[in-house]
């Protein structure tokens, strides 16, 4: 399967080649993914994590696929909802920079798990 990783995680940048590297925040990664999805790029992994704590991560990696001729409305709904939720949850909270290295590590490990799931295809 052809895919690219949209990421701002320096650890992923070091280890992976097929990436769109975003010089910016978690939110900037979401916005980059949103822009790609509106151009017809397929969303492969869900933009949000599975726990509240990972929302405070400075880093995020999201997998996208090939560009299609038609924009998928379901993918638009998912990425737009994700941005709304990200902003909502960060309203009163700070990004947890103190543990940035650990977040980079976990984000990278969760990414590896997702890629393993894609490998079999």
């Amino acid at each position, binding site marked *: 399967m052809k895919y690219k990783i949209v990421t701002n995680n320096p650890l992923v940048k070091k280890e992976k080649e097929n990436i769109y590297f975003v010089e910016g925040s978690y939110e900037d990664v979401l916005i980059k993914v949103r822009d790609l999805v509106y151009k017809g790029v397929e*969303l*492969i*992994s*869900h*933009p*949000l*994590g*599975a*726990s*509240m*704590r*990972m*929302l*405070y991560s400075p880093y995020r990696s999201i*997998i996208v696929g090939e560009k299609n001729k038609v924009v998928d409305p379901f*993918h638009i709904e*998912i990425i737009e*909802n*994700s941005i*709304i*939720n990200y902003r*909502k*949850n960060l*309203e*009163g*909270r*700070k990004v*947890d920079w*103190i*543990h940035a290295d*650990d*977040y980079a*590590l*976990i984000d990278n*490990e*969760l990414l*590896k*798990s*997702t890629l393993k*799931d*894609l490998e079999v295809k």
Partner: protein
Amino acid sequence: MKLELRRIHIKDIQLGEETKVKDGVLFVNAEELISHLKEDSRIKDVKVDIARPGEKVRIIPVKDVIEPRVKIEGAGNGFPGVSSKMAQVGEGKVNVLYGAAVVTVGDIVGFQEGVIDMWGEGAKWTPFSKTFNLVVDITPVEGLDPHAHEATVRLAGLKAAEFVGEAGRDVEPDEVLTYEMGSHAEESRKYPDLPKVVYVEMLISQGLLHDGYVYGVNTQNILPTLLHPNEELDGAVISGNCVAACDKITTYQHQNNSVILDLYEQHGKTINFLGVILTPELTTLEGKFRTCDYTAKLCKMLGADGVIVSEEGYGNPDSDLLMICKRLEDAGIKTVLITDECSGWDGASQPLADTAKEAVAVVSTGNVSHVVTLPPADKVIGNAEAISTLAGGWDGSLQEDGSIKCELNAVIGSTSEIGYHNLTVKLY
């Protein structure tokens, strides 16, 4: 399958020369326990401590909570496929040290929360302030990769619970709970007029600190699978440690899954309970489609009239929850969802990361963003530095008197999406 959970009521834990239960007091020989755990060469150091209800003690960062038990009749003991040999569990007799819990602590990564306060305000929010906790703090050898570190801590907790549980082997129980259910054909003959109900239990299955296991198989690698409810009550399902403290299902909560127990209670009275489908929550959209389609298909094949779905976590799993709901409702199967809410400090925001018009029956298990104030503890078990993680959420979260303002999402089991906890949210 017939399973007896034979509860021995534990009224205190003390360290002693022999690991035994006497007059409702659990004595633990800490040295023996430590040397048993240190048989794993990946463990450098183990500290054992006790936290009792009412003591001004804070435990942080909690990784898992496990109920100590011993199987005295029937196949398997402990957690087959993980800490003991593979066996078909769900049948036989289990002696349960009811009221006691093994709590594992230890940093795997620095940002983990997971607090249990044994007294005061904090105690209100976690069910594990009511248990007598044997806290096992595990330090691994240096240089372990994070996956090996996680596995080491996970196994040590399970082994500690087995070791301590052994103390109940020859003790007469204070109460015996029996869980018995035959084949679908048998139960449907017995209760032809009762609606058939399936329980779908979703599990975070996404990688390091975001995993669950069934018979030792990482649920990332399973298709949705059907379990007899007794299997989960008998140790087939375990937690893969946690990041999401409030709604990660601990092993203890699997062993005492409230949804299963409540459905059992109604079995033969108002419903015909058909069993449990474990459904992984994956990260890819294709994976989510696969598991949600498959889950709905299993429910249809079983002839379910109604399905109860519980979620684990918050964020991308909300999509799975609602996709399952949509598929079931479209198939004419009445569906009830159990989930927590992430509805902001004031409780007014949209509670889930996703919505669906088919979700018409939803049970809320609490608002993870609800802010609570935890006063300073006399004693901290675990890593006191982790408290700064708790306190560092926003400006002013650390008060002048040392109190910490934090969100419920930092408190273990506070918004359990299988209902093993203390709170809910009501519309008004």
